[in-house]
């Protein structure tokens, strides 16, 4: 089923934001929509999006490669993106990341064996006063988790696994 068939209302609503002669502007929100279920973008999904906004699949792939929140590889159900940039690092983000890796038994960039979580190091998320912090990117969008400890992070992962849904 194509994206337009699957989410007719959403696609229409996204397109309505931009002048009809500039529907290419809708490509980024459409990519988020296409990524919602699987957590990454397949070739077919990119082709779909390309068709809606009338550009080539190659142009869409170039966007997916350029912007970090789009993924062309399958990752964990949730991506845990820890900020290790300067302001967070001055407040212990690197140690937090190291401890988290040890506890999860994976390295940065790897996915847990059960396929639930991919751990990533990212640049500034505009939460410098609340480090250590990370965002989770998953089926329910992107959420911030601030002033975190390793214990609370492990707790969060457990809650996510149990509920199947993220809690605030």
């Amino acid at each position: 089923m194509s994206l337009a068939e699957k989410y007719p209302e959403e696609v229409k609503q996204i397109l309505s934001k931009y002048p009809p002669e500039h529907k290419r502007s809708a490509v980024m929100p459409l990519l988020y929509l296409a990524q919602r279920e699987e957590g990454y973008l397949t070739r077919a999904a990119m082709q779909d999006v390309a068709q809606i906004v009338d550009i080539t699949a190659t142009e869409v792939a170039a966007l997916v490669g350029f912007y970090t929140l789009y993924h062309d590889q399958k990752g964990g159900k949730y991506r845990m993106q820890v900020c290790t940039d300067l302001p967070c690092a001055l407040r212990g983000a690197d140690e937090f990341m190291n401890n988290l890796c040890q506890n999860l038994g994976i390295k940065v960039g790897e996915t847990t064996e059960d396929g639930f979580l991919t751990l990533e190091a990212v640049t500034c998320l505009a939460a410098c006063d609340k480090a250590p912090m990370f965002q989770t990117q998953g089926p329910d969008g992107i959420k911030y988790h601030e002033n975190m400890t390793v214990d609370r992070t492990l707790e969060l992962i457990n809650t996510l696994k149990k509920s199947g849904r993220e809690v605030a």
Partner: protein
Amino acid sequence: MMEHIVLRHREIPDLNTVDVYKKNGGFEAFKNAVTKMTAAQIIDVVKNSGLRGRGGAGFPTGTKWSFIDNKSWPHYVVANADESEPGTFKDREIMESNPFQFLEGLAIGCYAVGANVGYIYLRGEFWEIASLLDQKIAEMEKEGILGDKLFGGEYSLRLYTHLGAGAYICGEESAMLESLEGKRGQPRVRPPFPPSVGLYGKPTIINNVETFTNVPMILSKGADWYKSIGTADSAGVKIFSLSGRVRKPGNYELPFGTTFRELIYTHGGGVQDSRPVKAIMAAGASSSLILVNNDDKVLDTKMDYATVRTLGADLGSASVIIIDDTVSMDWLVNKTVHFFRHESCGKCTPCREGTYWMSTITERIREGHAKPGDVDLLLNVAKQMQGKCLCALGEFSTMAVVSGIERFPEDFRRATQPSPLPVMEGSKVR
């Protein structure tokens, strides 16, 4: 302490609800503008207030608005909510807690330049804020503040949110326009500037969230009132995002001209473990490092655009990162260079290659594999990049490198010594 002008939610609970916002004078400035003022009158008030752009460049806002090309239509306004400079987290608080004042300021800006459509370009990570703003926009439409033929007149206005997807460069205005057009966020060659050729090739005004949020109060209370706050060079208030090694990091809205000392010690609670301030980055990761070493003269410097420049640095978006004496500058520079290497859009060769090489060299220094002459090489690469890139990113990436090596040579000498010298605490953090 004076009452807040931008972060008014700190005094007024529930200011993010329509009722409370209206009870506190909300939407009056916009209604008054649309029903009683001409575009030229509004631009004059904003000009006379001395308001300067809060995104980092400090360009006079009213002047920018007056540049809009009235020979070409339609016009657009884009609010820059891409907030991605390491050390900046002010626009988030505004949009989360005082969203209507921001949206009202944006609406006034749209009316002043004759735009019927305004976009809010948010960084992709602000997913939750975007849906919050969508709700608030819907509420304003319900109240008749946004929509067609507003207040019984001819003016119509629609506001839309647009999410980016993780790219610092999209905070640069021409890259933001490219991204909004559905392309990779790579800066355009300028001139022409956006007020003549912007979104979809049409005249476009782009301002930061904080800039717009000042506007309703300026229209309500007048240009003279606003100008009486701050300094002659920089009028009004600024939100200082304070981070790094301070006890109470956070956003502090203070008049321009407040000293670094007051920000760090009165508001920020002083440095962690009462250590001395070694350096300050006033404009986030894009800053030149201000050499402090607890020098009273530096700590007593007033924070406005002109005065910070006398320290060989810029105030930028006022993302003030405090660095204490446990931090070694070779570690710090490695962090900032890594950031810019990741965020370089790849369009200009000096930036794409330069950030790669600076990152490779600083990595080598950090890992204790420095080759003789590596510090000179690093400085050389940085200086070769300066003045050779289309946008400011390439330039910004060299700021901490050049100022770090020139102002803290001892840190780099120590880091490149082959013998086992004492390792500073900050440098152990990886």
